[in-house]
């Protein structure tokens, strides 16, 4: 397929890798922020091809992974209500709540439906006027405008039996939290290309300047990621701390203005709890006053559900790039994609699931870590 195949070309990838080996002289530690990028890196083994000492640590950019357990419990409570249809993306159905998950609720008779696009929930609501339909939407800035369309359409078409349970998070505040942490080891960042496709490049320019860290907005294919790594290495070797855009074929300086306008008509910025990271100020989205009537938490009185994270799961360390999946004592034994303890093992974009899928039989034990597992989570946790 055009614009995919050429960015998987082995020869071009290897020529980029050769460039990297020419440029890099020091053991730079880089972070890819987005879980989609993590998946590509681990799938193709790109992080294992880097020059000696260079390391990729995996960032918090997997929305399924950072959705707090209590939101899952709220979704489960909704799915158990009579005459209620809970609609969500496939990834969300297997995420463990404190006692169950949505697939189990479905197996016991709950009406839980998996959709590819949020617009399908509008159709389901129109087809089932005697049922309450709740769209359970998570995601970063990339997905938020599409999810916002559900509330926008419901309001415009006067659909009364449709509401949203949403857990939206914003990337820059989480990146800022990681960069300002005393545990931070990251010297260069690959920023999420599809988030920037919507939001533009400004926030990352500010982060690069404020924290004096090079940031390259990167795509998702192997050649994209290798080029982004080369660009970061070049900046680090030359002592530059700039925002650069590798993913120019999709990311414009101003992003997608129309999507952003819709996003901030339907949602407003709020403080948000991240699974593994704790509360991060101004890092989430909630329905704005004009759309609050579509908030499922208010409509069904779910605000008070609150639960603790499972103790054995070290997702807090994983999501901050402080530990690798194989350092977890439960990895591949008590925690597998079929029976996950924590969300990074659920989503295909989660670091644990990617390691399980592509690397569980390899000998690497995750000796790359600098903070002992079991130390207190970073601030905010």
């Amino acid at each position, binding site marked *: *397929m*055009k*614009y*995919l195949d*050429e960015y998987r070309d*082995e*020869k*071009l990838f*290897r*020529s*980029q*890798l*050769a*460039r990297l080996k*020419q440029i890099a002289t*020091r*053991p730079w530690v880089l972070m890819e922020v987005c*879980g*989609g990028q993590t998946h590509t890196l681990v799938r193709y083994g790109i992080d*294992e*091809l*880097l*020059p*000696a*000492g260079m390391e990729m640590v995996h960032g918090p950019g*997997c*929305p399924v992974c950072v959705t707090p357990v209590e939101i899952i419990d709220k979704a489960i409570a909704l799915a158990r209500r009579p005459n209620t249809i809970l609609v969500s*993306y496939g*990834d969300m159905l297997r995420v463990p709540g404190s006692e169950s998950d949505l697939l189990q609720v479905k197996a016991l008779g709950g009406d839980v439906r998996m959709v*590819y*696009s*949020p*617009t*399908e929930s509008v159709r389901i609501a129109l087809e089932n006027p005697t049922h309450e339909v709740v769209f359970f939407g*998570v*995601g*970063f800035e*990339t*997905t938020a*405008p*599409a999810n916002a*369309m559900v509330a926008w359409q419901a309001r415009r078409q006067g659909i009364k039996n449709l509401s949203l349970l949403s857990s939206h998070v914003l990337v820059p505040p989480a990146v800022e939290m990681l960069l300002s942490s005393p545990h931070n080891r990251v010297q260069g960042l690959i920023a*999420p290309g*599809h*988030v920037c*496709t919507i939001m533009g490049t400004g926030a990352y320019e500010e982060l690069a300047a404020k924290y004096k860290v090079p940031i390259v907005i990167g795509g*998702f294919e192997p050649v994209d990621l290798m*080029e982004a790594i080369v660009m970061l290495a070049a900046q680090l070797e030359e002592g530059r701390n700039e925002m650069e855009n*590798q993913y*120019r*074929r*999709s*990311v*414009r300086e101003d992003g*997608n203005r129309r*999507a952003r306008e*819709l996003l901030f008509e339907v949602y407003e910025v709020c403080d948000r709890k991240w699974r593994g990271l704790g509360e991060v100020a101004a890092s989430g989205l909630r329905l704005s006053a004009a759309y609050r009537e579509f908030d499922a938490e208010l409509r069904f009185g779910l605000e008070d559900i609150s639960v603790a994270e499972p103790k054995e799961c070290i997702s807090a360390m994983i999501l901050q790039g402080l530990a690798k999946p194989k350092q977890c004592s439960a990895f591949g034994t008590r925690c597998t994609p079929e029976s996950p303890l924590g969300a990074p093992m659920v*989503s295909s*974009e989660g670091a644990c699931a990617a390691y399980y899928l592509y690397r569980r039989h390899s000998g690497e034990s995750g000796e790359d870590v*600098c903070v002992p597992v079991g130390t207190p989570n970073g601030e905010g946790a």
Partner: protein
Amino acid sequence: MCLSVPGKLLERTDVGGVLVGKVQFGGIVREVCLDLLPEAKAGEYVLVHVGYAISLVDEEEARKSYEYMELAGMLEGELTAFPEDGPAPVIEASPPSDDFASHRPGGEPL
């Protein structure tokens, strides 16, 4: 979650006030909502995320950056005598050198 796929917009239609496009991904054609990208025209490539077109793929930028990478790769190839034909060389992950090991985080400061 942020997965987005590029496809070719074949045609646009208005379905009850919603702008819908037929988009071809390889051999598959799917309906995609164009409300977040109403300026997209038939024949252009769009990036599609959860059923919504979210950006136009800029052909000029794609061509320029690709040519740049190919050129940089060719120059590199001349420097490193990279084999052009036959099976691709297997590049092993380099063993950690002592030089770098001493600079590992947690070791001496850089």
